[in-house]
């Protein structure tokens, strides 16, 4: 098999940046696994629920709350579009009612965590990201440095940022720059 190359290869080198002392931010990355989009039309919800239940996911989730089970996550990103990670291969579901699309190589995940993670996010996006407004399980579609991203809250101080691969380095660099006052640790693969 050919070598799979992360778009963040040049960035995912262990190291320490910015302020000395305690580390407020940890940055890392991981590839996405089998990311598929399903999209439909008038009766989209019915068609989508069929796919989701085959994958063991119950319910469509909402526009801010992902549906998660069995290591899979489904995000309702638009009225007629759902993104599913760890979906396996969904090409067989392609029909006149449902369009399936493999986007596994289109995104990569930037892992942002640490005691100051929410402060860094508040420097990057104009959305309330305090714990009450953006708790674990919720997701946001927004722009970091003018690049459209999806941010999934994984816990009190942990976030997964799904960024388009061709923009991933620029998003990473801006996150890192903003995190420097807190002390940044890069966690290699």
């Amino acid at each position, binding site marked *: 098999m050919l070598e799979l190359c992360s778009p963040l290869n040049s960035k995912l080198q262990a190291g320490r940046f910015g*302020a000395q002392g305690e580390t407020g931010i940890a940055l890392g990355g991981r590839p996405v696994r089998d990311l598929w989009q399903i*999209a439909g039309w008038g009766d989209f919800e019915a068609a989508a629920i069929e796919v989701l239940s085959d994958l063991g996911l119950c319910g469509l989730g909402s526009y801010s709350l992902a549906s998660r089970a069995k290591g899979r996550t489904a995000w309702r990103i638009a009225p007629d579009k759902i993104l599913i990670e760890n979906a396996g291969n969904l090409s067989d579901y392609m029909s006149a009612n449902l369009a399936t699309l493999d986007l596994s190589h289109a995104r990569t995940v930037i892992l942002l965590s640490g005691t100051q993670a929410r402060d860094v996010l508040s420097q990057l996006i104009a959305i309330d990201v305090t714990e009450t407004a953006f708790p674990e399980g919720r997701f946001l579609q927004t722009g970091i440095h003018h690049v459209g991203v999806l941010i999934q809250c994984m816990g009190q101080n942990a976030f997964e940022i799904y960024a388009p691969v061709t*923009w991933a380095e620029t998003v990473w660099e801006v996150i890192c720059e903003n995190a420097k006052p807190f002390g940044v640790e890069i966690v290699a693969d």
Partner: protein
Amino acid sequence: MKRLDTGGRIDRSKPLSVTFDGTALPAYHGDTLASAMLAGDTMVVGRSFKYHRPRGVYSAGVEEPGAMVHLRDGNRHEPNARATVVEAFDGLVSSGQNAWPNVRFDVGAVNGLFSPFLSAGFYYKTFIGPFKNTTKFWMMCEAFIRKAAGMGRGTYLEDPDHYEKRNAFCDVLVIGGGVAGLSAALAAGRSGAKVILAEQDFELGGAVLSEPIGGEDEAWVEAVLTELQSMENVRILTRTTAFGAYDGDVYGLVERVSDHLKAPENHQVRQRYWMVHAERSILATGAIERPLVFGGNDKPGVMLANAARTYLNRFAILPGESVVVCTNNDSAYETAAELARAGATVTLAEMRASVPSSLTHEATEAGVSILIGHAVLEARGKSRVASAVVVPIDASGQASGAPKTIPADLIATSGGWSPAVHLWSHLFGKPIYNEDAACFIPRSEENHKMQAAGTAMATTSLSETIEQGFDQGVKAAQATGHAKECGARPDHFMTGAYWQRGIEPIWAVVRTNGKCQGKAFVDFQHDVKISDIDQAHLEGYVSVEHLKRYTTTGMATDQGKLSNVNALARMSELRGMKIPEVGTTTFRPPFTPISMASLVGHEHGKHFRPTRLSPIHHWHVENGAKMTEAGAWMRPWYYAEAGEGLDEAYIREAAHVREHVGMVDVSTLGKIAIQGPDAAEFLNRMYVNGWKTLQVGRLRYGVMLREDGFVMDDGATARLGEHDYFMSTTTANAAKVLAFSEHLLQTAWKDLKVHVTTVTDQWAAIAVAGPKARDLLSNVFKGADLSREALPNNHFTYAKLDGVAVRIHRMSYSGELAYEVYIPSGYARAVWETLHEQGQKYRIKPYGTESMSTLRIEKGHVAGPELEGRTTMKDLGLEAFASSKKPFVGSVLRKRPVLEDPERPTLVGLEIDGATGAKSGSILFPKTGETKGHGDGWVSSTTYSPALGKNIALALLKNGSSRKGETVRVVNFIGNETLTAKVVSHHFFDPKGERQNA
């Protein structure tokens, strides 16, 4: 001027090294630069804007018009810093500005002699007056005036510090950390609302900080602060100015995180720009004391009364030993009494005709001599005040008796107080005039998002300020859904004298002839004299907004802080109207100057905009590619071999492709998945050509128009499955085509069952071109039949490399036998490396955008320079693609008569004579005649063609198709160069396309 041994809020155990113009100032921790200057008896600290008059410290706050200095040096140098708000730090270096050789002796002061010529409207009159049409003379004068006028000098060095932006969300934003603000924050905080309290000073307390230390008010502040600091829902930001209030409940704040340090420490930022989203805000910005207008009121040694008090009580400085206090209201009495108690000889010129003894009692006890019904007519002294000319006055401020001269080194004045209503004004609030307090205050409106409290609303006692602040805090909490009990108000029952009481609106002190004695300033920052207001009136200016612009009063950093009411009062007096009838001007953000850097944050240099990288990017960089920007993308421009420059490299690369084989990274092409049962219908509407017959496994070139009938984009679309298409667009137009498609599908074409999704990131693409392309790919992708028969042009097939599935499109941009290999982007680098490695035996070489362009120009293919938004299909020779059997986007408007004009420039080729090529953008003219105007067309793309051995170009030329063989002139007006060229077909090379069909 002397530093007192006790008192003040300075830390005498922490002396700081602070200098002004090289002289050390006696500064302590807790000082400002201005207080250190006064402690060092530095009286002249600046020169005025227009007349270069000596100016000293006039205030103790953000309104400072005189003490503007250069701060720091080297790459942290900063002009126009107001010394009154610069916190002293160890190592602070400052110097005078707008003066040569220095502020004490300034050659520019000669401007004062020309003051009759530099009065209101100087610029307008000079342009349209006697010097009209004397450009040369004017230019000479302008150079002199520009040099003489103005403020500090900036630096060209790059700022070494970091700045950041942060978003914050709260229920209640309290602007101002004085008594009203603290009280409001307390109430809102207790209710559980999320509160942000912003204070521009480095200490909280507002006006209380100007009081003698250890008083009851201070104890109140401390108690409230302790409670606030214990609340998790309250964020207190000091050194933070709310500079603007905007639509959408957004407020701009700048926090000066490290300005009080020599340099930011441990990667901290210098300043932080807070964009605060607050449902409600409370304007607790207090009030700014007003100057009085009299002759020489700008001389060093004239100061606002409350500033004198602040220097005395907060900074433990006796700002004068012989002091004349002049006031039209009660607030200056405390200043007078405290100065006298500190050892100064104090005379108080009371402008009002009578005052109650309860007011004068305390001052008299302290030893102040009070002259009722008197005012300062003129401040005298060369570069600092030496005496005050005091006269008895009538109720209008006109001298009514003999003047007498009182020796004085400080004249402290109070003309009343102007509430800082600026942020209210930003929200389009029109302030109303409060007759009792003779000032403009925000109009109280229920349900307005911003409510004012405290002296910003002209409260008359501390108790009232506390009460109003608290009440507004409660209301804001309730309005944002926080009903929790706010508890009891932390009352304070000191009901003694308070500012603003008993004001008589006397603003200017004039002689019996109605004029001031000497230069009397209304706006100190712009050197606007009261006589300039008079002149504007004489010239017929009646609107305050016109007055402001004509005289420049209240413009720029003053924003009316000191000048507003005095100018309006004079205007209303001259017009025989009341101040509210004249109205007030609109204050605009920022409230105080803010650095551009704070607004920019990290978005400069490399991070000015995002950068987009191909999945193969790092290979290019590691292998010597010179990169170039293409929109947000970085692309390989050329791969220089030993000693090569751009020209040698691209010519070699292009020739190599035609002779052997080359590979180019085309991952930047826009790629859009078009899916759904109506996909073919959608394509039929988007493209000018037909799509209903395209079979699975095939691809087709298409052209798209804009709604107005001009060409938008071109590219190939492949049919992957029954309901599944893969569209490619040009690199430049990818986002535009996607957004336009989404718009149509979500508005006018809702009936179409189609989804469009970008897959630009999912797929990388490598074009392999050249006579050996098939051999190479067949060798690498074992099992794929790439033969001419199995895979003709405009077909695609699937192949595998080491388990990775790729798609190979047969199509050519270069005119050679060529393929585009589409690869899931994570494997793109590995595939590229494999092709490069296994291609060595075919002599493969990578090529960049420059040679790619050469190859397509040789073929006459249009690209960005031709698809520039002003060209039609007809112009570009693409009209044959348009279907007449169906409507498509732009199909009707492309037929507008003006776009069908046969005279329109059309695409042609040019063979350029001589060894130098043409420049893109050159204008085409016939062989003879004048070379003026727009000519007959222009050069769009240009290159040296190794295949033809000459310089060629694509151009758009009037009646182009009928001018083949003609010689035209190619004029580059910028380079002042004229070439000649022969008009030819734009299909320069292999017009029959035999090579690509090989």
